């Protein structure tokens, strides 16, 4: 049963990918895409009830359990969204059927890669999976084949592969550090073994390894100044992919980084990973907050907001301590739900307005009330206003930080405020005022947005004890 | 029994100020006329004026509202109540505790508030001039008054007029800098509040620098009579205020013996006379100032009051 669950989580996407690669009909593909992701979601949920024992390659513990479910859930809702989205793209002819086939196949490959990265117990395997995910998204970002799309994909590809390389080097170094203690062979790359023995590793080697991993995976996380690929990739790719990128891939990369942070946390002699992460996090936060002001493309703007939030999350984990870690995990979950919901809304907005330029949008609440208010709710959530989930996590981050490091908390708050101001500045011109720009009837699928925002809303006022239990244990693990 | 006695005394006080007010104005006018080598109107001319005005019809402007007709009574009531609470010949009146000095200042303030509204009600340019200047003057005079109250209250340890004048009469006062400052400021405020020269000229109408008279320009008949009476009451009030605070001699404290009361009344009238003469002297010896020099005049008063209060705050010995 348990093995079936794992097999399902990995196998279903893989099979589906092969199937879609062969399947010509778009509608069937879209439907079965939803079906496949739905099945994956069910399998991943079943992981909770029966955790498979950690093997040499696979591991399911509290840390990745929640992530797997989150990934497959967002993957599921996104597939629902993408069905209507891609349909529209076909109608207006921005995509041709062969590309749609390619798109669906790649979508499943991406799902497979991310699930693999999450449940991999072998750091090498994890690396491979993340690279696979990256390359898949590169393909999908370039799918529109416009100048901008290709340029974005190219940029993403180059920076991404450099990140790949650095991460691999870091992984090798970890192995080198582990080998004298654990001995040659597979065990020296099995995370669950590493974390038990990491105390004896050569600290200096771990340091260098962490620097490389931080940069390698940090590129995927989109931390400034390694972020350059992120805004364009979000802006030029199809919106479902933007949603998956912001909602999931960044998380997966951060997840990988956390695994290694735990290694260092075990080893007292190694440098504290905290300061590095805190610095990069704050830099990303403040930088992205200021970058929000001059954005004219709505998707690019929200991409920068993703950078901002990744900064906050990295900062939280960098601070460490049960409260901050808890807040970081919560923020991670809430952000991926909220941001993907925002991208769903933005995707439809861009379709009804026929453009992504903020200047051409206006009075959205007049022309498309549901869409408009959903977008507003999403922005309110992402801006960290109650009663939505991100408020809870930001509350915990700031209040727990200020008592320990007031200066840092002040910078944090400053960044938040600046970003907040920018977001609402743009939101006003999009949602309110006289209706501007073209507006056709919205053929939107509201279900995914409502589902996500509903969850965020519930989490804002009530967190289920089970979730809290996982988060707390993980927060302790993270140290 | 005691209650009835106190009631009567309170009533006497109220009637006394009401009756003395026109006389005092007449007296001041007479003295001024004399100082100007004129014979001047008879002392009781103000009474005649009142009766004449009361008999006349009210000629009401078309655009006047019901408020315009209510205001004279409001103003008169507020001023009369205020005046009847200032000790004249006897402290510790029955209802003296119902409003302390701050409240009395505020009562006069409400009178002014409504008068200014009346100036705006008909919608003429002169009324507007009057009330806008009036509120400008008041906006400086009132804080000055409050500062003076602070000073005196801090000296006497009370804002209760009876207590204050009793304390002032007692030897515990001595000579204080802050008292002198407060006295000067109070006199300046009194001049401004009663629209006397050099702030305003109570005897003229057709002058663009007038303030009080411009406000009440549209009033006629009994309304005008009431407003005139109210302003005369106000003058008496201020004089008796100064008297009971800075010349608290001869004020019967709490006894009810008739001769003592009679003595008190006599003393009070004497003080009024002195005050009237001084006022007339001052008014005849000074020229009216431009309206926009008034802020400086009152600002000086405010500063004096503030200075006095500061002195009191900083050390009790001033």
């Amino acid at each position, binding site marked *: 049963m348990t093995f079936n669950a794992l097999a399902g989580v990995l196998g279903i996407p893989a099979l589906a990918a092969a199937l879609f690669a062969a399947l010509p009909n778009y509608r069937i593909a879209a439907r079965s895409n939803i079906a496949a992701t739905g099945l994956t979601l069910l399998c991943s949920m079943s992981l909770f009830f029966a955790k498979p024992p950690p093997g040499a390659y696979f591991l399911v513990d509290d840390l990745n359990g929640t992530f797997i479910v989150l990934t497959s859930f967002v993957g599921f809702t996104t597939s629902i969204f993408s069905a209507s989205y891609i349909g529209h793209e076909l109608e207006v002819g921005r995509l041709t059927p062969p590309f749609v086939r390619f798109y669906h196949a790649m979508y499943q490959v991406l799902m497979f890669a991310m699930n693999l990265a999450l449940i991999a117990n*072998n750091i*090498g*395997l994890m*690396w*491979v999976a993340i*690279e696979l995910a990256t*390359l898949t998204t*590169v*393909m999908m970002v*370039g799918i529109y*084949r416009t*100048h*901008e799309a*290709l*340029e*974005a*994909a*190219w*940029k993403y*590809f*180059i920076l991404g*592969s*450099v990140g*790949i*390389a*650095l991460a*691999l*080097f870091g*992984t*090798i*170094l970890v*192995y*080198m550090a582990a*080998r*004298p203690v654990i001995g*040659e*062979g*597979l065990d*020296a*790359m099995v995370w669950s073994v590493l974390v038990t023995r990491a105390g004896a590793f*050569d600290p*200096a*080697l771990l*340091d*260098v390894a962490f620097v490389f991993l931080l940069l390698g995976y940090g590129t995927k996380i989109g931390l400034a100044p390694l972020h350059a690929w992120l*805004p*364009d990739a979000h*802006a*030029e790719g199809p919106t479902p992919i933007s949603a998956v990128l912001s909602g999931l891939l960044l998380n997966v990369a951060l997840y990988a980084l956390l695994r290694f942070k735990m290694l260092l946390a075990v080893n007292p002699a190694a440098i504290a990973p905290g300061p590095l992460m805190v610095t990069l996090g704050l830099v990303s936060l403040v930088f992205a907050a200021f970058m929000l002001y001059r*954005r*004219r*493309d709505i998707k*690019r703007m929200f991409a920068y907001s993703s950078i901002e939030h990744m900064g906050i999350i990295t900062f939280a984990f960098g601070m460490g301590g049960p409260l901050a870690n808890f807040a970081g995990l919560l923020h991670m979950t809430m952000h991926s739900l909220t941001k993907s919901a925002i991208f769903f809304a933005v995707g439809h907005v861009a379709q009804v307005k026929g453009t992504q*330029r903020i200047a051409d949008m206006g009075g959205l609440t007049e022309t498309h009330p549901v869409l408009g208010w959903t977008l507003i709710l999403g922005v309110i959530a992402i801006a960290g206003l109650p009663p939505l989930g991100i408020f809870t996590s930001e509350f915990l981050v700031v209040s727990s930080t200020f008592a320990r490091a007031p200066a840092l908390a002040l910078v944090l708050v400053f960044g938040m405020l600046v970003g907040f101001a920018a977001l609402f500045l743009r939101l006003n011109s999009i949602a309110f005022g006289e209706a501007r720009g073209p507006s056709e009837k919205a053929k939107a699928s509201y279900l995914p947005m409502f589902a996500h925002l509903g969850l965020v809303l519930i989490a804002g006022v009530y967190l289920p004890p089970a979730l809290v239990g996982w988060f707390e244990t993980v927060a302790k693990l993270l140290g | 029994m005691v209650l009835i006695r106190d009631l009567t005394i309170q009533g006497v006080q109220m009637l006394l100020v009401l009756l003395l007010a026109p006389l005092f104005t007449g007296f001041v006018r007479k003295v001024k006329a004399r100082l100007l080598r004129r014979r001047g109107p008879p002392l009781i001319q103000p009474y005649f004026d009142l009766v004449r005005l009361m008999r006349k019809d009210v000629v009401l402007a078309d655009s006047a509202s019901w408020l315009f007709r209510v205001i004279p009574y409001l103003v008169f009531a507020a001023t009369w109540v205020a005046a009847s609470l200032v000790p004249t010949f006897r402290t510790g009146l029955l209802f003296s505790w119902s409003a302390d000095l701050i409240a009395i200042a505020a009562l006069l303030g409400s009178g002014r508030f409504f008068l200014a509204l009346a100036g705006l009600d008909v919608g003429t340019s002169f009324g507007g001039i009057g009330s806008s200047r009036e509120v400008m003057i008041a906006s400086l005079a009132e804080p000055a008054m409050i500062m003076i109250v602070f000073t005196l209250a801090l000296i006497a340890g009370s804002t209760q007029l009876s207590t204050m004048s009793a304390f002032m009469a007692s030897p515990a006062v001595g000579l204080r800098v802050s008292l002198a400052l407060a006295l000067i400021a109070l006199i300046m405020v009194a001049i401004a509040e009663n629209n006397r020269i050099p702030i305003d000229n109570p005897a003229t109408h057709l002058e663009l620098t007038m303030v009080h008279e411009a406000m009440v320009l549209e009033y006629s008949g009994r309304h005008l009579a009431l407003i005139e009476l109210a302003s005369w009451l106000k003058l008496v009030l201020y004089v008796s205020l100064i008297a009971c605070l800075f010349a608290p001699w001869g004020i019967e404290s709490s006894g009810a013996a008739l001769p003592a009361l009679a003595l008190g009344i006599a003393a009070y009238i004497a003080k009024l006379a002195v005050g009237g003469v001084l006022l007339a002297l001052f008014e005849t010896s000074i020229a009216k100032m431009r309206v926009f020099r008034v802020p400086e005049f009152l600002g000086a008063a405010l500063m004096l009051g503030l200075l006095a209060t500061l002195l009191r705050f900083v050390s009790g010995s001033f």
Partner: protein
Amino acid sequence: MNGLAFDIAHLLAGSLVLVSLLELYQDRLYALLNIYALHAVVLAASVAWQAFVQDAPHLYITAAIALIFKATVIPVALHRIIVRLGIHREIEKVVGVGITMLAGMALVALAMVVMLRVTREADPLAREDLAFALSVVLLGLLMMVTRRNAVSQVVGFMSLENGLVLAATGAKGMPLVVEISVAFSILIAFIVIGIFLFRIRERFDTVDVQILSDFRGERQ
């Protein structure tokens, strides 16, 4: 024996660094490609030697991969592409060769400092290898940031990968999965690059990244 083994490994790894520096020195694309081929050959040799020293036969596969793909297939393919696209043969540099070389030296020194400080109790073989590998990686990166042509950037990237392979093989007993995945990813990477070069060919007249970058979403 061990001493000799160590010396040879040392020699090979060191020469790899040397070749990287040579790459920095080039200012012609063809020459650069040749040097890169040499780079790959040296890598293959070093990997093979590691395989022999650690008597880990699976490393020979890696060596073979390096030899076949990197030393032959890729340079030839790139050669073709250059001809096909009629790319300008010069390498446009950001900074002059001299400064680039100096920077390269500094980077090698940095790599040495960082690495030699680290693994004292690890066996010297791995230690030296790591130091050299790191410098190769850094030099590859340096090449990417100081060259303007897409091709030379690709070359820089691949020499960076070579550094990784060097490190991986230097890590004694590292499971095969890694090398295969490395080769695999590089293969994919290369395919994608190819695709992109062709796509770009459809759109642009050159693959100069500088010009590519002029099309930016915000410039609307």
